[in-house]
C-alpha cells in the first residue's frame, strides 16, 4: 500500500519559487490501476518520481508497504527501485548500444544479495518477459531497429524483469500513435488484472484516464481523487479515437 501524507514540493528558478504540490494526501491499495492527470507542470511526474524513490527532495511523507521512503539510505532506495518498482517513461530510455535482451536484463546487473540472478537465469527471465510483451523474436535487435511501440514494450519488459509490485508509468503512450498507445494501455490493464501489479499512469490523455477505475487529478498544487465504475474489461479499440481506429 502507498500512503502519501502532506507532500509538498517546490522548484526554484533563480529567485522564483514554484510550489507545485501543496500538501497532497492519498493512498493507493495493492492491485489498483490509477491514472494521474493534470496540466503541464502541475506536478504529476514529480508525484510519480517521489513514489518511485527517484526523488527525496520534498516535504511530507511517502510510505510504501510501511516503509517511509525518505528514511531510507540512498543505497536502500536503489534496492527498493530495483526490486519493487518498474518504471516506464515516455522516451523509453533504452540503452542504444545494448541488444533488446541485454536492455531487458539490465536490472539484474544491479540486483544484490540472494535475489541476484546468474547470467543464464537472467537471460532466461529476459526471454520470458519479452515473450510476455510479444517480442520474443527480437532479442538480438538493438533499439534503433525497433518501432516506437516495440521500444516501449521492451521498456515494459525491462520494468517487469524483477517482478515488481508497483509499475510507475510517466506518459507511456506520449510518443506513440493512437493504435500503439491502445495496445500499450491494454498491456497495462492485463498486467494489473492478471499479475495484480499496482499500476500508476501519468497521462495527459483523458481517454486513458477514462479507462482507469481511479484518477488522481492534480490542479493548483492540490489533488482531487476521482473514482468511477468501469464496465467489462476495456477493449483496446475503446481508447483509440474513432477517426484513427483501423
Amino acid at each position, binding site marked *: 500500500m502507498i500512503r502519501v501524507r502532506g507532500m509538498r514540493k517546490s522548484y526554484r528558478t533563480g529567485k522564483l519559487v514554484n510550489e507545485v504540490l501543496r500538501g497532497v494526501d492519498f493512498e493507493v491499495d495493492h492491485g489498483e490501476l490509477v491514472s494521474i492527470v493534470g496540466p503541464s507542470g502541475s506536478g504529476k511526474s514529480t508525484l510519480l518520481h517521489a513514489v518511485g524513490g*527517484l526523488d527525496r527532495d520534498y516535504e511530507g511523507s511517502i510510505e510504501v508497504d510501511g516503509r517511509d521512503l525518505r528514511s531510507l539510505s*540512498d543505497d536502500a532506495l536503489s534496492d527498493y527501485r*530495483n526490486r519493487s518498482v518498474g518504471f516506464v*517513461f515516455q522516451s523509453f*530510455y533504452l*540503452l542504444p548500444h545494448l541488444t533488446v535482451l541485454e536492455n531487458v536484463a539490465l536490472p539484474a*546487473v544491479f540486483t544484490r544479495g540472494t535475489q541476484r540472478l546468474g547470467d543464464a537465469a537472467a537471460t532466461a527471465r529476459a526471454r520470458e518477459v519479452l515473450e510476455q510483451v510479444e517480442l520474443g523474436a527480437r532479442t538480438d535487435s538493438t533499439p534503433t531497429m525497433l518501432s516506437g511501440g516495440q521500444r516501449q514494450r521492451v521498456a515494459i519488459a525491462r520494468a517487469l524483469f524483477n517482478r515488481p509490485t508497483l509499475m510507475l508509468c510517466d506518459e507511456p503512450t506520449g510518443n506513440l500513435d493512437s493504435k500503439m498507445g491502445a495496445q500499450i494501455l491494454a498491456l497495462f490493464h492485463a498486467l494489473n488484472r492478471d499479475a495484480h501489479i499496482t499500476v500508476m499512469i501519468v497521462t495527459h490523455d483523458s481517454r486513458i484516464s477514462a479507462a482507469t477505475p481511479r484518477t488522481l487529478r492534480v490542479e493548483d498544487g492540490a489533488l482531487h481523487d476521482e473514482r468511477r465504475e468501469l464496465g467489462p474489461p476495456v477493449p483496446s479499440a475503446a481508447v483509440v479515437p474513432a477517426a484513427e481506429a483501423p
Partner: protein
Amino acid sequence: MSGLRRVIAADLQRSRSHFLLASIGIVVGIATFTFFIALSQGVRAVVLGRIFPLDQLEVVPKSLDIAIGPLAIGTSTLGGDVIDDARVRQINALPGVETVYPKMRLTVPAIALGGESLLGADLRSEIVADGIEPALVAADVGAGFEFRDFDAEPGTPKACTTDDECGERRYCGAPAGTRLERKSRNDDTGRVPEGTATVCRDYVPVLASEHVVELYNGALRRAHGFPKLVPDSVLGFTFELVIGSSMVGASNKGHLVRERAMLVGFSRKSIALGLTIPLGYVRRLNVDFGQPEDAQRYHSVVVMVPNKNDVAAVAKGVSDLNLVVADTGAEQAALLIAIFTLIFALVSAVIVGIAAVNIMHVFFMLVYERQHEIGIMRAIGARRGDITRIIMGEAASLGFVSGLAGVALAFGASFGFDWISQTYVPDFPYKPETYFEFPWWLLLAALAFAVSFCILGAFLPARRAARMEPAAVLSGH
C-alpha cells in the same frame, strides 16, 4: 563476463573514437616514461656494472701530497702510501665487509713484447702491472685457463731443451727468478748466467681489463690499421715480459727478469690500463728489485661489500682507519644518471598529467551525453557506487590498454634506437649492444602509471555522474 563488466565493455566499444583520441596523450606519455627509464637503466647497467662496479670499494692510503708547480710532493713520493697486512686485517674486520683483497703494484719498470701472431706485427710497450689475490677474480678466468701463482708451488721443475717437451700451455726456459745480466743499461735482452739449466715453466697468467680491449677497438686499431679484437678470441695469447727494463732508459735496473705471459681472462677487477697477475709474482719481483719489507707493502685493497646498504658504513670505517675510498667516479656517474632519469620521468609525468586532464574533459562530455542512460540505470536500481564503478572501470580499461600501447611503442622505439646505433654509429669504448633494460617492475610501473592517471582523470566526472539526481535528468528539471 559479469553484468557490470559487460556494460563497461559495451560503453568502451561504442565510444571508441572518443577514447582513441583521449588515449593518445597517455600512450605518448607512457612510451616516454618507459623509454627513458629503460634507457637510464641500460646506461646505468653499463656505467655502474661494467665501468664503475658498485659492490666493491677500492681503499687506498690517504695522500698528503702538495703541488709545487707541476710536481706533487708528499707521502706518495716519499714512500708512505702503503697498506700493510695489519691494516688489511683491520679493514677485513669492519662490519659489512665480506672479503678484502690486497693489491700490490709492480714497482719495477717493465715492458711487454709480442703480438705478431695476433696483430701481424710485434708491439713493444711500457707496462703497468699489479698483483691480486687469485680468489678475487676466479670467476673471470676463461674456460680451460688458470690464474694462480705457479712458481710458488713446491716441487722440482722438469729439465728440458725445447717447448715441446713441456706440454700444452707450458714452455722451456730459465728457472723462475733467474736474474739476467745486462751488458749495458740499454740492453733489454740480458744474458742467462752460464750453467743455468732450462726447465719447464708455466706462463705467468695475466688478466686484463675490458677497458684495454675497448680502448684498442675504439681508438688504437684505427690509428694503426689493426684488426678488431673480440675479447674471448684473444684468450691464450702469449707475449714476453721484461722486468727491470724500460723504454725510458734512465729507469733501467742493473739486471733483468724475463718471463713469458699468457692472457687468461678479462676482469672488471683488474687494473684499468695494464696487466694484472697473481699477487705472488709481483711480491717476489718487488722484493727482488727492492727491499724485503716490500713483500707486504700493498698499494690498495679491494673491499667486497655485498650489501649496497653497508657501503656508507664501510666507507666511514675506512676513513676512521686513516684510509680513503678511491674516487672511481661512480658516485658522480650515479648522480648524473639519477638526474637524467628524474628529468625524463618528470617530462613524461607532465605529458601524462596533461593527458589526464584531456581524459577528464572527455569523460565529462560522455557523462553529459549519457545522463539519461545514467538516470535510467539509477531508476532500475543502480547505486551511486555502481555508476562510479562503471565510469572508473572504463577509465581503468582505457589506462590499461593505453599503457600496453605505450610500453609497446617504447619497445619499438628502443629497437629502432639500438638498430641505428649498431648500423650507423661507429664503435666507441663500452658501446653496448643495447642501451635499454626493461625490468619487470618498469612494465608494471608503466601500466600502473597509465591506469592511475586515467582513473585520476575520470574521478571528477565519475563523481558528478554518481551524484546526478535521476528524477532531474529523467524529467529535464
